[in-house]
């Protein structure tokens, strides 16, 4: 920590930083208003898959960068799970050197264009900004600026490919190709390893591809980053399920020295209430996979999807928001969120909730489904809902919902999307009997090195955390790379 503070101070004391700080008075900086993100009109965007946020213009980015006062103690950094040097990249934007700003981001974050779009900034970096903490004003728009710099680099055609060490000819593999894995792969490639990423599906990117919709995170943004990993020498093998297509033992025989398990939390949870298996009741995973991975909404593709008229999505997380907004875009007349707590407790990103409301999504908060009913063909047509009120805070610190007796009522629905959480993917634990897992099925690892109970197996991301965020998954990937690098160095010495 001491070293970090010294480092940050040294950086802050550099001439260019001192100069740019002096350009505008502190008071003047703090009087500026936070930039507004440019958005596509709600009535246009809720009918297609165009990205909702269109990014900041150069002028907007320059103005917003001026708001950052380049604090002596940049508390914002403590809010970022990968510790991006936030004031440094923002000041690079202020001096107009956008490509350098992007390089600063890439020192610690492999996927800045992704994080700038999907991080829950209001709970992370921006929550710790001087403006939030001390001035009680709207924080510097760190996420928007991060996206701006990353997009600028992507669009410039001058992507900087990080330098990699000379090859050490040691093979390592990741299981899964989500954000945890991509961050791990970048670091391992930099260390000089021969890196292979195995993915069960036919696309690389994990949830970034099959889960998060195009209108929030375009696939091309992810693909550019994957392309730069390829240029660093990372090999991607799709349609390969580790534990089925080949076992860990097979892969050890092929010379792999260590493994990073980042298989995610892909198992959908249902509520176990009557009628949940009727036609038209889906998991959000199925619904989003059909649309995002299989392109079901495009008639050129063979995979079908149901475009309901009356859609109810159960849950209040990012996944629920993505599903309900997707349903709207597929032509639903009413698309509703049914959530058992109140708006305050909703785990989704604030921006997604706001966008959903603008797009005409109805929110039935403090409501919980009890049962589904179907027509003679087994297709869901009605549901029974119960109203809730908030009781005492539970173990998660949120006030727990309590049913109101006698408040049950019926809603007409033709499509229901259940989005009440996911469980860790059991495939890997099931094929490794020595692997220690928690009672929730998450892999138990050393918090510093991410090493599991099997020495050559490391793990991170949702399979360890049981459903978290992109940036936390990436943080795990980087820690695991450092841990694995050390483990292999010791192993090879012997």
């Amino acid at each position: 920590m001491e070293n970090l503070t010294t480092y940050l101070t040294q950086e802050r004391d550099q001439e260019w930083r001192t100069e740019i700080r002096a350009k505008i008075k502190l008071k003047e900086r703090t009087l500026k208003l936070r930039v507004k993100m440019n958005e596509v009109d709600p009535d246009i965007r809720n009918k297609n898959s165009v990205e909702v946020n269109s990014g900041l213009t150069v002028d907007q980015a320059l103005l917003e960068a001026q708001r950052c006062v380049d604090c002596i103690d940049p508390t914002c950094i403590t809010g970022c799970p990968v510790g991006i040097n936030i004031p440094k990249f923002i000041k690079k934007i202020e001096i107009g050197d956008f490509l350098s700003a992007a390089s600063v981001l890439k020192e610690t974050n492999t996927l800045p264009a992704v994080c700038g779009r999907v991080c829950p900034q209001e709970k992370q970096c921006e929550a710790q900004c001087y403006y939030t903490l001390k001035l009680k004003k709207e924080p510097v728009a760190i996420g928007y600026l991060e996206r701006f710099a990353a997009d600028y680099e992507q669009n410039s055609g001058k992507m900087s490919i990080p330098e990699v060490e000379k090859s050490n000819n040691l093979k390592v593999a990741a299981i899964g190709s989500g954000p945890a894995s991509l961050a791990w792969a970048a670091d391992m490639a930099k260390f000089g390893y021969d890196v292979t990423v195995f993915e069960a599906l036919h696309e690389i990117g994990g949830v970034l591809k099959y889960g998060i919709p195009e209108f929030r995170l375009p696939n091309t943004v992810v693909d550019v980053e994957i392309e730069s990993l390829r240029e660093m020498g990372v090999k991607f093998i799709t349609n390969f399920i580790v534990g089925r297509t080949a076992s860990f033992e097979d892969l050890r025989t092929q010379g792999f020295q260590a493994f990073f398990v980042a298989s995610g939390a892909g198992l959908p949870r249902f509520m176990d209430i009557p009628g949940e298996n009727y036609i038209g009741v889906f998991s959000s995973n199925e619904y989003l996979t059909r649309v995002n991975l299989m392109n079901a909404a495009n008639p050129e593709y063979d995979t079908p999807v149901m475009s309901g008229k009356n859609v109810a999505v159960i849950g209040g997380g990012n996944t629920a928001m993505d599903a309900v907004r997707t349903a709207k875009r597929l032509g639903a007349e009413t698309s509703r969120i049914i959530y058992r707590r109140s708006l305050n407790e909703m785990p989704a990103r604030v921006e997604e909730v706001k966008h959903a409301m603008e797009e005409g999504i109805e929110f039935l908060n403090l409501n919980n489904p009890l049962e589904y009913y179907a027509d003679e063909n087994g297709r869901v047509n009605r549901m029974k809902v119960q109203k809730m009120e908030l009781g005492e805070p539970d173990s998660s610190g949120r006030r727990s919902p309590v049913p109101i007796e006698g408040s049950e009522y019926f809603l007409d629905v033709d499509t229901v999307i259940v989005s009440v959480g996911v469980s860790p993917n059991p495939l890997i634990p099931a094929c490794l009997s020595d692997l220690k897992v928690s009672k929730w099925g998450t892999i138990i690892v050393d918090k510093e090195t991410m090493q599991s109970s099997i020495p050559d197996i490391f793990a991170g991301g949702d399979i360890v955390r049981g459903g978290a965020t992109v940036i936390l998954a990436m943080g795990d990937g980087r820690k695991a790379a450092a841990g694995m690098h050390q483990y292999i160095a010791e192993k090879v010495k012997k």
Partner: protein
Amino acid sequence: MNVVVEKIFFSEKVAKLVIQAPEIARSRKAGHFVIVRVDKFGERIPLTIAGANIEKGTIDIIVQEVGVSSSKLCKLNAGDTILDVVGPLGKATHIEKVGTVIAAGGGVGIAPLFPIVEAFKKAGNRVITVLAARNKDLIILEDQMRQFSDEVIVMTDDGSSGKKGLVTQGIEEVIAREKVDLAVAIGPAVMMKFAALTTKKYDIPTLASLNTIMVDGTGMCGACRVSVGGETKFVCVDGPEFDAHKVNFDEMLFRLSAYQKQEVEAFQSFLNK
């Protein structure tokens, strides 16, 4: 990319494809399946691995044309490629020596039944295979089945091959004359439902291999869920085989028809192309 090495038509609408997939060939066991996506526009559809050749690095799949995806597959020729083949998926059949086994296959179910018949025979069981379909053309693999069965009974709805009648009549015929220790039924959901009702009368343990709609095949989407003994199970990871006496076939039948309208429309426009 997986190259199609060979294609043989068993009947007008049923083809066997031999596909290059060395890793899968090595890892697969009887009862396993693969998920296949023909081309960029294709669906991911599940197909049983009907056989494998480890030396050549190939697997066999037997496909019956019922809609767009299966027709696209049947149109491929040797030398063509399949974009995605992933597996082996599902739980392998639990093969052991139990005594006498009835293996009942209906229509599309005959293909997935074949590796199971082979495995039970090799484990030393007496295997009596009952093949059933609407007509003669839909009875496939009869000769291959004979190779690994002590007896093959053929039943057709119209009597164009074997005996006229339903699969259940074939099963009853065997049960009436000898002790049966296990039944395996694979075919359309209705056929499995009635086969299960028949064996239940005689308390014969029965396995059914369920052919639900799937997307990923790895437990991620829940499209394939069925109720077994009142609990929701995912066919792709918990199955595809279950205790047939506990499966809620009526629910499964409903769920299979979920996309019928879209499927029929898509198939029509595919045929018109």
